[in-house]
C-alpha cells in the first residue's frame, strides 16, 4: 500500500520538521546556504520551503502563477492578493513588478511583514554577489545570489528602510536555500563568475 500511495517527501511531517530546522538555521545565520536535497525527494527547494512554512492558517500570493493546482491542494493555504499575503512566491530572475507591494507590518506588529520566497538558480556559487553584515553574522560574509535580478535587492532596501518594518527574503535554487532577514545589511558587490 505504501509503495503505491507514497505522500510526496516534502509533505511528510518528519521531512517538514527537517526542512523547517534548516530554514531556521538559515534565518539565524544569514549568508549560510543549506542544501535541502536530502529531504525534498527531488522537489524544488522553493516548494519544499513553502511546504514547511504554509498551512491552512496562512495566506500565500503567487502573482506569477508558478504553482500548479496540485501544489495548492497540498499546501492547503489561502490564496491572497500580494498586499495581504503572509508569504509571497516569485521568480527572481526578472525584476520585481512595479506594482508589487508586499505587507511590511506595522510598528506594533512588525511580524506581519511578508516573507518572500524567491526562486533563482546557481545560489551561493554564481551571479549577483553581496556582502552581508548584521545579527547572526560574525563581522561580515559574502553570498552569491545566482540569477537573482539586482532589482530585488534595490526593492528590498526600499521595503526595509524603516526597520522593524519590512520583508524577509528566502532565496532558493533547485535544492539550496539562503535567507536574508530584514535585519541583515546587504551591500551589492557585482557579478560572481
Amino acid at each position, binding site marked *: *500500500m*505504501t509503495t*503505491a*500511495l*507514497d*505522500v510526496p517527501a516534502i509533505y511528510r511531517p518528519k521531512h517538514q520538521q527537517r526542512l523547517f530546522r534548516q530554514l531556521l538555521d538559515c534565518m539565524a545565520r544569514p549568508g549560510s546556504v543549506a542544501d535541502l536535497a536530502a529531504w525534498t525527494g527531488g522537489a524544488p527547494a522553493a516548494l519544499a520551503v513553502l511546504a514547511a512554512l504554509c498551512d491552512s492558517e496562512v495566506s500565500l500570493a503567487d502573482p506569477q502563477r508558478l504553482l500548479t493546482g*496540485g501544489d495548492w*491542494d*497540498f499546501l*492547503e493555504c489561502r490564496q491572497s492578493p500580494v498586499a495581504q499575503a503572509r508569504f509571497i512566491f516569485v521568480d527572481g530572475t526578472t525584476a520585481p513588478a512595479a506594482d508589487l507591494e508586499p505587507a511590511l507590518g506595522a510598528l506594533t506588529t512588525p511580524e506581519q511583514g511578508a516573507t518572500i520566497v524567491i526562486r533563482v538558480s546557481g545560489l551561493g556559487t554564481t551571479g549577483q554577489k553581496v556582502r552581508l553584515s548584521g545579527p547572526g553574522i560574525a563581522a561580515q560574509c559574502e553570498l552569491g545570489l545566482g540569477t537573482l535580478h539586482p532589482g530585488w535587492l534595490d526593492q528590498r532596501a526600499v521595503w526595509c528602510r524603516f526597520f522593524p518594518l519590512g520583508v524577509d527574503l528566502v532565496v532558493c535554487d533547485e535544492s539550496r536555500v539562503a535567507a536574508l532577514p530584514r535585519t541583515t545589511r546587504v551591500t551589492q558587490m557585482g557579478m560572481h563568475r
Partner: protein
Amino acid sequence: MTTPIPPRSLWMRAFAAAESDRVLALAGRLAIEHGATHRSAPRAGLALLRLRESVMLDTFYLGEIPVTTARVALLGRDGLHVEGGAVVMDDDVEFAAALAVLDGVLAHGLAGAAEARELLDEGLAQIERVANVRAAMLSRTKVDFSLMAEAGDDNRA
C-alpha cells in the same frame, strides 16, 4: 439479482467494519492497478466535536474525536483522473488512504468495483450483526411496568 448499492454516505462505515487486512490488501492492489496518487496530504489528528445547545443555540465543544482524512486520484477510464476520499474516525493514515481508494473505485465503477462491493456488503452485514446484538442486549433491559400494575401493589393490601 443484485441489491441496489447503499448511499455513498454509508460506505466509509461499511468498509471500516469489514476485515481490515482484506481492505488493505484489495486497496493496495487496486491502488497499483489504477495508478493511485494522493491529491492532498492525508491528515490524522483530533477534531473537535461541535454541538449546538437547544436553548440559547450557542455552539460548544462536546469533546475530541480522532479523525483521519485522505483524498486520492485514480486513473479512470479513457485516461481521465477520478477521485476518491475518506474521512474516518481513526488515526491510521494508511487505512484512510485505503478506504479512499475503494471509495474512488466503487464510485466511478473502475475495474475491481465488484470486489469492493463485496467488501462493502460484508461490512454492512457486520454492522447489522452488531446492531442486532446490541438490540438484543437492550431488549433484555426493558421492564414491562404494565405487568406490575396488573399484579397490584402488595404493600397496599
